C-alpha cells in the first residue's frame, strides 16, 4: 500500500517544524555572539543583521581566567572519565562473568540505589568528603563522580559483557590465562563500542556537572567551567554577546564529540543482547 503525496508532505512538514524548534534557539544564540558590545538586550532585528566575527570569543577567552577554567574542566573530566570507565568495566566484569553466593542480592541492591534520585544525596556526600578532609580538592570531586557513578556504568556494561560468547575465552584459557587476561584481551576489546558510548556519557555528565562541583570546590583557581560560566553570567549578565560566546565555547567540545561519534552509539539496558559483539 502506498502513502499518498499529501501525507508525505505533511509528515515532512511536521519533522521540519521540529527541526526549526530545536535548531532555531541555537542559531539565535550563535548570531547573538556576533553582536558587539551588547550591554542591553539586543533587538531581534539587530541579531538577524550581524556580521559573523570572532571578537567576542577572543575577549571572553582572555577574560576572568576563562581559559584556566577550561583547562581545569579538561583535567577534572579526563580523570573522572578514565576512572569511571575503568571502575565500571571492572565491576561489570565481576558481575557478568563470575557466579558467587549473594550475587543477585548485591545486584538488586545496586538496582535499588538507582531508584532513589541522586540529588538528595548531595548533602551527605558533601559531609562524607568533608570528613575525609577532601573539600576543595579534585580528589574529593573525582571520588564522588567515579564512586557515585559506578552503578550506572556497571548496568550499562554488564549487558554487553554477558553477550560476549564464552567460546572466545577458550583460546585464552587453553593457554592457561587468568581471568584478568580474559578481561583485558577478550572483554575489553570485544566491547569497544559500548565503552566508547559510556565514555561519551561520562564526558558529558562530568563536563557540565554543576552542583557537586559548586559544593565541593571553594577555591576560585580550582573552579570548573560550569561554575565559571555561572559566575560570568552573574557578572556580565546584560552583555549577551559575551555570555553566549562563553557558552558556545563551553558546549562546543560536547557537541563535537557527539557529532563525530554518534554513528557508533549503542544502546543498552532495555535491549540487552540485541546487539552484536
Amino acid at each position, binding site marked *: 500500500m502506498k502513502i499518498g503525496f499529501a501525507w508525505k508532505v505533511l*509528515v515532512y512538514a511536521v519533522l521540519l517544524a521540529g527541526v526549526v524548534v530545536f535548531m532555531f*534557539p541555537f542559531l539565535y544564540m550563535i548570531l547573538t555572539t556576533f553582536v558587539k558590545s551588547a550591554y542591553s538586550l539586543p*533587538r531581534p532585528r539587530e541579531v538577524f543583521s550581524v556580521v559573523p566575527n570572532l571578537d567576542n570569543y577572543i575577549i571572553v577567552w582572555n577574560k576572568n581566567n576563562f581559559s584556566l577554567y577550561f583547562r581545569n574542566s579538561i583535567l577534572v573530566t579526563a580523570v573522572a572519565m578514565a576512572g569511571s570507565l575503568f571502575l565500571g568495566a571492572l565491576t561489570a*566484569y565481576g558481575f557478568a562473568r563470575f557466579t558467587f553466593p549473594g550475587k543477585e542480592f548485591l545486584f538488586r*541492591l545496586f538496582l535499588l540505589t538507582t531508584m532513589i*534520585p541522586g540529588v538528595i544525596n548531595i*548533602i551527605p556526600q558533601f559531609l562524607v568528603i568533608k570528613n575525609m578532609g577532601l573539600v576543595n580538592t579534585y580528589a574529593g570531586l573525582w571520588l564522588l563522580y567515579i564512586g557515585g557513578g559506578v552503578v550506572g556504568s556497571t548496568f550499562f556494561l554488564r549487558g554487553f559483557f554477558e553477550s560476549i560468547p564464552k567460546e572466545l575465552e577458550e583460546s585464552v584459557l587453553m593457554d592457561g590465562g587468568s581471568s584478568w587476561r580474559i578481561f583485558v584481551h577478550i572483554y575489553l576489546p570485544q566491547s569497544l563500542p559500548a565503552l566508547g558510548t559510556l565514555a561519551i556519557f561520562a564526558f558529558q555528565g562530568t563536563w557540565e556537572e554543576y552542583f557537586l562541583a559548586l559544593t565541593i570546590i571553594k577555591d576560585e583557581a580550582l573552579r570548573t567551567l560550569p561554575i565559571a560560566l555561572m559566575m560570568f553570567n552573574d557578572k556580565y549578565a546584560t552583555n549577551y554577546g559575551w555570555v553566549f560566546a562563553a557558552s558556545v565555547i563551553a558546549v562546543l567540545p560536547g557537541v563535537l564529540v557527539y557529532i563525530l561519534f554518534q554513528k557508533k552509539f549503542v*544502546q543498552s539496558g*532495555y*535491549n540487552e543482547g540485541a546487539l552484536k559483539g
Partner: protein
Amino acid sequence: MDNGFRKRLHIGLKQWAAAFPYLFLGVAGTAVFVIYPMIKNILVSLQDYSIMPNAENPWVGLDNYRMAFTDPNRKFLMALRNTFLNTLVTVPINWFCALVFAVLINLSFIRFKITFRTIYYLPIITSWIVVAFLFRFLFANGEHGFINFLLLKAGLIDKPIQWLANYWTAMIVIWLFHIWKTVGWGVVIYLAALQGIPKDLYEAAEIDGAGQLQQFWRITLPMLVPISAFVLINLVNGAFNFFPQVYFITKGGPMDQTQVIPSLIYMQAFNNFKFGYASAMSVMMGLIVFGITYTQMKKLSGRRLL
C-alpha cells in the same frame, strides 16, 4: 556442621575470592558514596545538624519533618505541589512528542533519518546551564525579548509578558525548557526500539492485506509497549528530579513559588545551612520517588525486582 554445608561454604568462598578483585572497588565506592549517604541522610534528618567542627548536633526526633508541614510559608508543600504539577504537565507532552517524532522519522519514505535524529538530540548534549541562559534570553522581558517579539508580531498579545515575574508564566517557561531539552532522549530510544521490530511481522501483515494504519495499530504500538514502560518510568523520574530546570531559570522565584523539592533542599542546606531540615525533605522525596519507581517498574516490567 555437616559435610555438604562445609563444601558449599568452601565453594562459595572460592567463588568470592575469584570475583572479589573485580568487585571490591565498585562495591566499596557504591557503599561509601551512595549507600552510606542514604543512611546518613536519615540520621541528619533527625538531628539539629551543624557543619561546624565539634558541633553537638542534638537529636530532635521528627522536628525537621514536622517543620516541613508546619512552615508558615508553606515552602515544602508548594514545592511538592509544583513537583506533581511538573510531572502531570511535562510527562504526557514529552512522551507524546517523542513517540510521534520517532514514528515519523522511522517511516520508510523519510530520508536523512540520522540528520533528523542528530538535530532532535542536540539539546540533550548541550549543558543545562547554557540552555537555561538561552531560554532566559529568549523569554526576556520587554518587547525585544524574542518570544515577546514573536507574540507581539503575531498579534497574540498586546503588551510584553514579564515571563519570570509571575508564577504561571514562570512555570510555563520551566516546562517548555524541560520539554525542549529532553524530548530528544525519548525520540532516540523509540527510534532504536522501532528499528528492532522484526521486518517479517510487517511482511506477513502485508500479505494478509493489512493497511499502513492497521499495521501501526496492530504491530508497531503493541511492540512498543515494553519500551514505553521504560520511557515513562524515566520521564516520570526526570520530572520528579527537576532541579537545574528551576535553579537555573528562576532560582525558585518569584518568592519561592516555583521551587521544587531538590532546589529547595539544596538552597536550604547550602544557602541557609539548615542541614537537618534539608535532609528531612530529602528523605521524604527519596521515599516518594522510590515508591513510584518501584511500583511502576514492578507493574510494567512484570519482573521480580527484590
